[in-house]
Every structure is written in C-alpha cells, then in structure tokens.
C-alpha cells in the first residue's frame, strides 16, 4: 500500500511521474526500479508525460457505445484532438452507464447529452461539473436500510456486542439467510465468514471490494453514496466476527464523490466510537481505511486486488490457496463486495426470516441491480429477488418509444446474451444459470431490435482484451487474437477456420486461464453465435 499510495500522491501533486521522480521514489523506499516500472506502466492512474490542460477520458464500452452514434462521435473527438490543450483517451467503463455517454475531464465524470454536438460537449469539457448519482433521491428509502434516522445507526452491532454473541449470531443468521456474494461469483456469505473465523493465524483482515468496473455495473456506487453506514457496519460486524482489527475499502478511483461520502461516514463512525480502539464497545479494535485503486477492471478480481494492496502489479494469484486462508500479506482475509456488506447488516438486524419475506415464491431476499442500455431511466433498483427482467424494464421506465426487446445481458459484460424469449425469467442466481446465463453483478443491459449485436459482442470482447492483465498466456494472447478475428469478420474477410478457431479458443480460455476474466472473456460472443447466428456478418 505504501508504494502505490506514494506514487498516487506524487501523481496528484505533480500531474505526472517522470523518470527522475521515480528514481527518487525507488531510492527513498529502497525498491528496485523494475518494480516501480511494473507499477506505473500497469495502472492507468499514472502517466509518464506532462498532462495537457484538459485530459478527456472517453468511455468506449458497451453502454456508452450504445449511447453515441459512432459515425458522429468520431469526427467530434477528432475535432477536439486538434486542440493543443486537450488530450483525448478512450478508456474502459467509467461506471456511469446510467448517464451514458460518459466522459471524465481531468478525473471528473461528466455526461454530455450526446457525443455528436460540439456545442453540447464543449461546455462539459471546459467546465466539468461533477455528476450526481442520477436520479439522486437522497431522501429515497431503501428497504434494506433498517434505520429510520441517523440516531439509530449501528444499532445492530451495538446490540450484538451487548449480547456478547457477535460471531455466533452473525455466522448463524447469514447462513440461514443463504445470502450470496453480490460481486459476481455468488459464494455463500455465511460460509465465507465462518471459514475466516476458523482460521487461527493472526492478524486477519476485512476487505470491502468497492472496485466494480464491469460495463453496466454501477450499483455499488449508489450504495456507497447513499448507504455508506450500512457498508461500514457490515465490515465492522465482519471484523468482530472473524477477529480482524483492520478493514480496508478498495475503491475504484473514478468514484471521487463516493469516496468523499464514505470518508464522511467513516469520520462519523469514529466520532461515535463505532470505529476505533474499542470499536462499538467490543473491547476489540477495528478501523477502516480507504485504498483508492490505481485503476483497472482486473483489480475487482479479489486476488488481483490483494496484489495491488501489496504494491504489486494487479495480476491474479493462483488458487488455491484462497484469500480466506492466505489473503493480504499471506494472512486470513475476508473479502466481500459493497452490496454484500450492506445487505449483511440488514440481515443481521432483521434476521433471516425477514430476509426471506422480502421476495415471493421460491426466492428470498433483495438485490441491487443496475439497469442500463435501451431503457428510458437507466439506474439502480433494489428489487426482490425473482423479479422478472420484463418487470425491471418497466421499473426503469420501459424501453424508448417504438423499440422492442431483442436481447439482454442479465449480469454484466461477462454474462451470456439472452433473448426476448427470456424476458420473463426471474432475476435470481439459479434461474439465470438455468437459462444459460448468470446473475453476476446484477447489471442488466437492455438491447433493442435496432442494435447490432455483433458489434456489441465485439465491444465486450474488446473490453476484456483491454483489461486483461497479461499475466497468463491464454488470456493475453487469446483475447487479442479473438478481437483481431472479430475485426476480420466485421470487415468481411475472415476465413471459416478463423471462426472455428474462436470456438476452440473459447474452450482453451475457459479451461486454462488463471482467473475469471480470461475464462469468461469470449462468453458473450459464443452466446451470440448460439442465439443470434444471423447477426454475424457473412
């Protein structure tokens, strides 16, 4: 954490990191130069050349691609590029899919209405005003928030501490609730807490993964902004359960506003004695620090995240061992997603029965979903699990006039495309899997009939190519090769062997990649070939 924080500090202070600066860092921190090089070249937050007055990061991923007419936006960007004081870079998803098309000007996210009218774009670039989490209804009530007002906050942890049964109650209630991890992989939360609880090695760590970066995913951003205390309380409960004294929120660097909200909440928690040397009167120390990610989707992979915290290149580790036994600096580490911690607080407050009652039929509990793409009001919704996709689209204001559903991605960029015929499938881990896709992060991307699905799938594969860390061969070369072949197909000069090779490649990537990124990188493409073969250019 030390080296990356120092590099981050210098990046903010100096605007860029020249070799002389890096040599000083290496000498001061007694780190070999090659390690510094490895870090500053790996993480997109760092730049090596003096910045222009305005550096404009343009999101190139699926939702923003849908929101702008490429034929019109390209000339506009070219026009901006002619200015000496502006530097345009196309970047991966900024987590502002609900405001697409999104840009970041000197790090501040903005959203011009379109990307083809210079008169609309230029004011956003020249005078960036930070985006709020539209629709911003700070007064809106979330079902999972058990507290009617600020004075009741941390009541759950306080009462459990008073009862002296934090660990046992937490593990029991979470297991009863069958809460699953909301970061994408869906591992049972109670079991994870119990595994780390049982580890004897100390110290232990609790980490909140707030690095959601998959195109279409922005629910954690809203939770951090509006429910930071639930996340903090969840982490505290976890810390008291497993016996950790140190919590870390690993936050993506594009979430500046949410960072401030979180820091305010942490201050309040410390002031209230909830965090600190005697956290919530538990006789145990627990505090939380925020580590701002130096960037990259791969860091959402929990072992890549750990590598980053250890000042290494964010390259996923080999598993086993898993973080529960060998996590941060080799110690037992509990890692959950933002939403998981927030929901855990809710469950631990109300109990498992209440949780079950939040949805109907075979389903239990709540889920935050982000919906984007071809809907009138993209945004975050807290839905009972089992809500159908059709219902969710209705909640998001339906599809724009005159458009009908062609396909959707139920769980972000790595989930398989489903067709309109699946619109009545309930949003649920098992049901989505049965339908041939996955709930993943709960990022529903809606695509109307007018969309070129092949172009969308290519964009998704390109996203994984761009975000591949490069550690293992199949992902590094396979995603590149697949992208190149897709471009050949688009251009109409691909051979049939090449198309077949994509399928072989998918198989090898799934079987031999080190982490999930490589394993799923070609999923959307393969599901396209399966469900929408006619969308593939001949």
């Amino acid at each position, binding site marked *: 954490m030390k080296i990356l924080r120092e590099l981050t500090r210098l990046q903010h202070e100096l605007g860029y990191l020249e*070799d002389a600066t*890096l*040599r000083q860092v290496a000498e001061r921190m*007694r780190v*070999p*130069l*090659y*390690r*510094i*090089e*490895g870090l500053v*070249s*790996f993480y997109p937050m760092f730049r090596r050349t003096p910045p222009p007055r305005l550096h404009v990061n343009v999101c190139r991923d699926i939702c923003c691609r849908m929101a702008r007419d490429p034929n019109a936006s390209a000339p506009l960007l070219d026009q901006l590029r002619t200015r000496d004081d502006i530097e345009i870079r196309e970047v991966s998803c900024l987590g502002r899919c609900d405001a697409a098309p999104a840009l970041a000007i000197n790090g501040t996210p903005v959203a011009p209405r379109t990307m083809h009218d210079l008169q609309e774009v230029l004011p956003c670039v020249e005078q960036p005003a930070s985006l709020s989490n539209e629709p911003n209804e700070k007064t809106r009530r979330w079902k999972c928030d058990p507290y009617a007002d600020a004075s009741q906050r941390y009541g759950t942890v306080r009462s459990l501490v008073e009862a002296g049964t934090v660990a046992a109650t937490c593990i029991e209630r979470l297991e009863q609730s069958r809460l699953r991890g909301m970061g994408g992989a869906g591992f049972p939360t109670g079991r994870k807490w119990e595994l780390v609880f049982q580890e004897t090695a100390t110290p232990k760590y609790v980490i909140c993964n707030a690095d959601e970066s998959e195109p279409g995913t922005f629910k954690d951003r809203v939770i951090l902004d509006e429910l930071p205390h639930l996340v903090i309380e969840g982490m505290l409960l976890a810390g008291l359960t497993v016996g950790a004294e140190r919590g870390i929120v690993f936050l993506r660097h594009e979430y500046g506003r949410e960072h401030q909200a979180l820091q305010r909440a942490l201050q309040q928690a410390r002031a209230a004695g909830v965090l600190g040397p005697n956290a919530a009167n538990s006789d145990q120390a627990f505090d939380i620090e925020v580590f701002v990610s130096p960037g*990259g989707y791969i860091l959402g992979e929990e072992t890549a995240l750990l590598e980053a915290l250890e000042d290494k*290149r964010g390259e996923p580790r*080999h598993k086993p061992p898993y973080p529960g036994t060998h996590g941060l600096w080799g110690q037992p580490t509990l890692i959950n997603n933002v939403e998981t911690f927030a929901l855990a607080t809710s469950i631990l407050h109300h109990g498992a029965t209440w949780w079950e009652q939040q949805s109907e039929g075979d389903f239990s509990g709540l889920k935050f979903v982000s919906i984007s793409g071809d809907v009138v009001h993209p945004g975050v919704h807290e839905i009972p699990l089992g809500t159908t996709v059709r219902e969710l689209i209705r909640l998001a204001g339906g599809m724009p006039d005159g458009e009908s559903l062609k396909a959707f991605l139920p769980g972000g960029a790595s989930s398989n495309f489903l067709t309109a015929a699946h619109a009545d499938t309930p949003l649920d881990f098992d049901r989505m899997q049965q339908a041939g896709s996955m709930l993943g992060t709960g990022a529903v991307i809606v695509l109307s009939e007018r969309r070129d699905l092949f172009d969308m799938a290519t964009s998704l594969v390109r996203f994984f*190519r*761009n*975000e*591949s*860390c*490069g*550690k*293992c*061969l*199949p992902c*590094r*070369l*396979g*995603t*590149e*090769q697949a992208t*190149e*072949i897709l*471009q*050949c197909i688009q251009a109409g000069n691909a*051979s049939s*062997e*090449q198309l077949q*090779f994509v399928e*072989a*490649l998918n*198989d*090898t990537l*799934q*079987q*031999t*990649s*080190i982490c999930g990124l490589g*394993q799923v990188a070609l999923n959307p493409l393969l599901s396209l070939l399966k469900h929408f073969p006619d969308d593939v250019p001949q």
Partner: protein
Amino acid sequence: MNMITLAIDGQKVTVPESTTIWQAARQLGIEIPTLCHAPDMNPAGVCRMCVVDVRERALAASCVRECQHGMDVATSSPDLERHRRVLTQLLLAEHPTPCAREETTKDCQLEQLGRRYGLIDPGGVEADSLTPTAARAAARPSDLSSPVIAVDHRACILCDRCIRACNDIQSNEVIGRTGKGHASRIAFDLDQPMGESSCVSCGECASACPTGALTHKPITLPIVPRDALTSVDTICPYCGVGCAVTYHCQDDQIVFAEGRDSRVNRGRLCVKGRYGWDYTSHPQRLTTPLIRREEYYPKGPLSDEVRSSLRKDRSRPGGIVDYQQVMSAFREASWDEAIELVGRRLKEILARHGGSALAGFGSAKCSNEEAYLFQKLIRAGLGTNNVDHCTRLCHASSVAALMETIGSGAVTNVFADVARAEVALVTGSNTPANHPVAATFMKEAAKRHTDLILVDVRRNALADFAKHFAQIRPGTDVAFYNGVMHVLIRDSLIDRDFVANRTEGFDALEQLVLSDYAPRRASSICGVSEEQIVAIAHTIGRARSMMIFWGMGISQHTTGTDNARCLISLCLLTGNVGRPGTGLHPLRGQNNVQGASDAGLIPIVYPDYQSVSQSGNREKFERAWGRPLDPAPGLTVVEIMDGALERSIRGMIIMGENPFLSDPNSNKVRQALAALDFLVVHDIFLTETAEFADVVLPAASFFEKRGTYTNTDRRVQLGRRVLPPPGDAREDWKILCDVGRSIGLAMDYESASDVFDEFAKLTNNYRGLSHDNLGSTGKLWPCPDPRTGDGTQILFGERFPTPNGKGKLVPCPYQPANELPDAQYSFILSTGRLLAHWHTGTMTRRSRALSEIEPGPFAALHPADLAELGVSDGARIRVSSRRGSIELAARADRSIDRGVIFIPFHFREAAANVLTTDALDPYGKIPEFKFCAVRVERV
C-alpha cells in the same frame, strides 16, 4: 514431514507435502510440457502449457498446484493436448520462426512444441492459418544495446523466466514486466535499453530464456548448436569462488560458456565467467620464447605507459599495450636456447651471490601443481625461501591473524552456508563486484531470513539487502569492532561457555574494549553512529549463528592483521565457529590463492603451512626433494622489491604475475625491476613486468592445461584442458621442469597428476586426494574419505589446531593508518577492483565484452566533492600522492563517502599503484592499498 499419496496417470505416488504435481510427475518419469517453468525456479504458472486435469471445473497448472491427498491427476489426454496445441498456436502467431535461439543453439523450446503439435513443418516453416496479430507483433522492438545480450521482444513469450533469473536467482533486480495485457513486455529498470540499465551482464537471463528473446551475443565465432561443438566441463579461471563451467569450443576457440551445476555455483555465473574468456585466443598471445636484444641494455621500460604514468600525448586512447613499442626489444628464440640462457644466468648469480640473491614470484592464477613445483624450484633448486606470490597483496594479514589465533589460515566454513546463518557480517568486501556469484547466495539468504550486516567504506549492492549498512571511515575497523565487542560484553551477549572452554586471552580483551571502546569513543573514530554500533552488536549478540565474510577492505591495511584479529575475536566471543551457519570466511581473490598458499608459495612455510624454521619440517622436505634447504625464512613481495633496489636481490623468476601494476608504489617497482641483473618471466602476454625481462617464456593459459585449483571454500577442483596452447607456448609446470633441469634439479613428471600426488603426499590436508577422485565438482580439503565423501565443510567443531587446542583472543588497540590526509594531500585514496575487470587487466582488457563494458580508467568521488572541485562527471582530473601522479576521468559516485576517492587498479594508462604507499602491516607484510593521502585537481 507430512506425506501425500495421489495418483498421476493411474500411477500411485507418495510425495512430501507442498510438492507440486509437476515435480511429483517428474519423479514418475512423466514429463509435462512447460515453457515458463524450470526445476531451479519458483513456479510462475503463466504459460499454462503444463495444465493437467485434476477433475475440477477448470484445468490446473501442474507447476504451481500442490499435490493433495487422493488427487487423481491426468497429465495427458486429447483435450489437454488440444489446449496445449492452441496455446502453442497463439504463441507461434507472434513468434519470428526461426528465432535467434533456433538459429544459434537450435533449442527454442517454443519451436520444439510447434513441431510436436505439427504447427511447424519439418522444414522449419510455420504452418500458418490465423495470424492477424503477427504484423503488430513484428513491430515489437529489438534491443542490441547490451554488449553481451541481444533482446528480441518479438520472440518473447512472457514466461518470466528471465525475471526470476535476474531477481530470484542472481538477485540483481533489473528485469520486470512493463505495460499491461497484450502490450506487456519485459523491461530493464525504468524501461531503459538493456545496455543503459543497471544490468550487470551476468547473462543468467539469456541462459534461462527458452526462446530467442534473450540470447548471448557471439564473443568469438558464431554460436551454433552444442552437438556441433566440443564441450569440456571445467571451472572458471577468474576469482576464488571457482564456479563450475562448461566451455563449448570449435576450431581452437571457445564459442560460448555455460554454468554447470555444482555445490559451488549451482549453475550461476557472472559476467567474467560467462563472457570473459576470449583473451585466450587474443592475437597478442605469446607463442615463442623471447630474448632481449643486446641494444636494449641497460634495461628499462619499453612502452609509454610503463615509462611514465603521465603521458605527454593524451590523444592516444590508452588500452592494452602497443606491441610495436615493445616487441622490437626482443628476438625470438628456441625453447632450448631460452632455457639454456635462463639456467646459465641463474647459476651465475647463484655462484657469485648465493641463493639469497635470487627470488621468485609464483602466481595464484596457476594450478596447485605449478605452485608446488615453483616453490620446489626456488627452494630446492636455488636454495632460498625467497618465494612469495600475490596472496601477500590480498590476505597475508588475514592468514597471519588466523594462523596466530586459530592455527589455520583457511576458511572454517563454505560461503554457501550463509543460507543457514541467522546473521551474515560482510565487511571490507565489495562482494557483488569481486565474488559476484558468492554475493548471489548472500543476497538470497538475506531475502529469506538471514540478517545481513554490511560494514564498508563504500555502499555496494549488498547494502540494499542489508538490515544494517554501516559506512565506516577508511582505516578505522579496529575501533568499530572494538566498539561492537564492548557492547556485546557490556550487555552480556557473548557465549560465556564457548569463551571459557574454547578460547584464551579473554581478560585482556575485555579489559581493553570495556575501558577504551565505549560506543561513543568508537563512533568518534569510525564515524558510525553510537546507536548503529549498539544495534549491530545486538543483532550479532542475539543471533544463534553468524558467518563473517571479509575482503581486502580488512586486510590491505598497515593494521590488516589487527583488523582480522578483531573479526576473529568477534566470532570467538559469540561462539560462532564449528557449527552450521557459523564461521570465518576471508573471501579469496584469485582462483587459486588458497591452493597456491597451501602449496607453499609463502617464504616462511613449506607446503601445507609447515614452517621452514622447524628443523623437522626442513629435514622432511630435504629428504623428499633430495637437496639441502635454507633454514632461514625468505623475503616477502615488497621486501624482495626493496632487495632488488638495494641490489641484495639480483635475479628473479616471475611466473604469471605482474608486479609492475599490482604492487604498491609503481615508480619504485620500476626502478627495482630495472635494477635486476636477470629477470625471467613466464606469462601468456607481454606484461608491463615483462618489459624488464631478459627472457620471456610463452605460457599456456588456464584453458590450455590440466591442473587443480582450490577455491575460497577449500574445494579442490580439476581444471581440464579446453584448447591446445598456441604456437610453442608451454604449460607453466613444464616450463618449471625445464628450468629445474637446466640448473641441475631433476624434475621429471609424466603429468600434472603425478605432481599433484607428490604434493598431496607431503601434506595432511590434501592427503588422499588425486586427480582421479576429484570428480566433476571437486572435493573440500580435508577429505577423510575421498572415494565417497565431499570433504569437510565445517572445521573446528571440537578444537582448534593450536598447541593447546584453544582459540586466542588478541586485544588490538586502534592505530591510525600510515599516511593520513593533510592540507596538501586532503583525500583518502582507496584502490580496488571492478566487476568487469581482473587485477592488472592482462586478461580482461583483452576480452571483447569486458573491455567494452569498462573500457578505461576512472576515479570515483562523491558528487559533492566533484562539485567542490569544480569538476563535472566524466571530466579529467589529476590525482597525486607523495609518490606520483596519474590522470584519469572523474566519475560521480554516491556510494562513496565525501573525502574519499576510489580508483580501480586494472588500468595501465592510469595505474593506481603509482599513488599507493608501500608501508606494510608488520605481521602480514601486506601493503596499505586501501589508504593513502592524495591530492585531486582539475586538468
């Protein structure tokens, strides 16, 4: 240890816990293909070629996955082969087939896999179908900036082997990955060209690379497959580490070298060993005997550089000697004529002035056999003990102290045992430059769990790995170590039992260090803070084991013996002798400085340190050699030079040494050599010293003869003949026999092996060893069971070889250096060596790669001192002492303290020893190379 049983391809196997599947499969004889893994490396698991089916959702990389109970592993199946084929295909799509490795040693592991999977046809052409990325990959750069390694990023498969070779194995920490995803590349430092990075050119990366991404540049002939070359397993000719090497040869030239697995170097090499052997085929090699022409008497120097240290004409670039200037002084002669002349002149001097007017310098670069014969020739043939060699200039004081205190001058434990030491104290040693491969083991240990303490005048590369680095003022070691011992005794951190049972003299030592060397006083002398002295003492005192390594920074002082006594006392006080991870290890410089001393190239002892003053010893050798021997101890190196000046020494034989450049106060040496009535030199080149010779005899180089060499660990290893000698050049041992016969000493041996047998029989420590039982990796002396044993690694577990079996603690008060700086000469000069060069440069400056890496002389000073002098980095300065002046380039160097200047002594055009003082340590008679006062001026 827990054992685990699993099944691999249906075969049951039981392995220790934490064994990987790849290792377990290997035990069963199942080779799982891999590109990124090698047995001596930590697994990276990035190429995925070694994936196996462990009946999970996805395949597992066998190189990283540990075996588990009851696992059922399949290492081969149509599916696995299909995936491996796809992975190979992905790599080949970006690979320049054939790559540089395939075009040289023909062992590109990727192309081998390509052929296995039918992706490259037998003609070597890629069966191409889907290579849209090839064009972009082809744009990847190559980097030819290193003098020894070619980088081709197109052929790089990012297996990270070079990264692990550089960082894990050699701990040089230069190579890493830069960039991300498909744009990832390997990079040096901050992505500098390799030749401009901090790379030390050890070549470990190129040896580890499985493809043509990193390949060795040719040194002599183009590199071709090994099976087209003649390969000889031998050792490296350079330093005392004695690395095992295989040389691959063609047409009487070495084509390339590879590290060989042995307990010494485990396959590792440094830049000199890997790339610095082409001197042996340099056109300046001497190939025929030379006799000085009449018109070149009276004798004097021949080349400009030897005539004067300040050349008038600065336009000449320096470098090796211009043979045109020197060769005209000699005429070619037959061996018979030359040997007859040598015999006649030696006999004349003997008759007129007696044996004591003759002297010989043997060489620590020659074999044990040659060292033995040389001292036999001088002692039995010329009747004098005036025989010495360059150990006088390196560890004479260490040996004097060791002999005095523990009764033996050799190391008590091997350097690799640093891995078991809780503390390693390295002092007065720039190990990464002078014993580079030994340094890799120190760094490796420091990265694991050994606390490394570096005490040195300069901050060398070990400092980055050290728990404590104390930058000590030159010449103040005694005060520093007395301070450390003060704290150890004061804070009861000594080993009382060991002190009581195994040592004597504690009271006097305690009295001295407790009363006079409190940390404050020690600190005021040595410049290391009180806190650090205490911290270092506590680290040492609390450790259960410590090894002490030292080099010339300890020994080359007028207080060198005192310095070594202090280290020995420190070791004895803390009971750190005779156990694993403990011991005293003076790092030996030359490849055979241990052996040359063992063989008796010392004026006061016969072979195996048998004193010449004891009549029993003398009688033993008189019987063995059939000649009366001189009972008087002989003169040492500097005393012999003094004798020449005073004309008490009239004639000399110098074998493979170059005292003009290596001895202190060159201007005096010049006069001394010129004053000799007769000088015969055998060497492989016409050295600066040979310019004063009457007869020059062409010797075979290390590569051209067979013989044994004893490394710093006491490991006796066989050097095998790699090449034939050029022209009429002869092995030194044969020359010695010729000279012996010419003066009537019968020296008839069939082979070097016979010489070794005669030598070994006269010793205790070599007894039982022979050329036949040394094997491919040698044996440590003493070796009680040479047929099966490797020899004795750790000495003195029970008693010391002293009369009463006890080690002696010798109290040493601090004494300042001989020539302290003053207003006129305000800088302290310290001399030493560079990684890329060897001693007087005779060999290394004639090596293409090494002289390219360090082409010329320089003086290193702190940048602040340079600024004060108004000298910019690289500008010329004049450095003068009371004895002479040289001019050379200044180099800014933060590793050096203010007020100190460091000059390497390899360079004849700016010979550091023009400046040095010949003041001697009273016991070891070693000159103070590490301290004299100089003046620095802009030119």
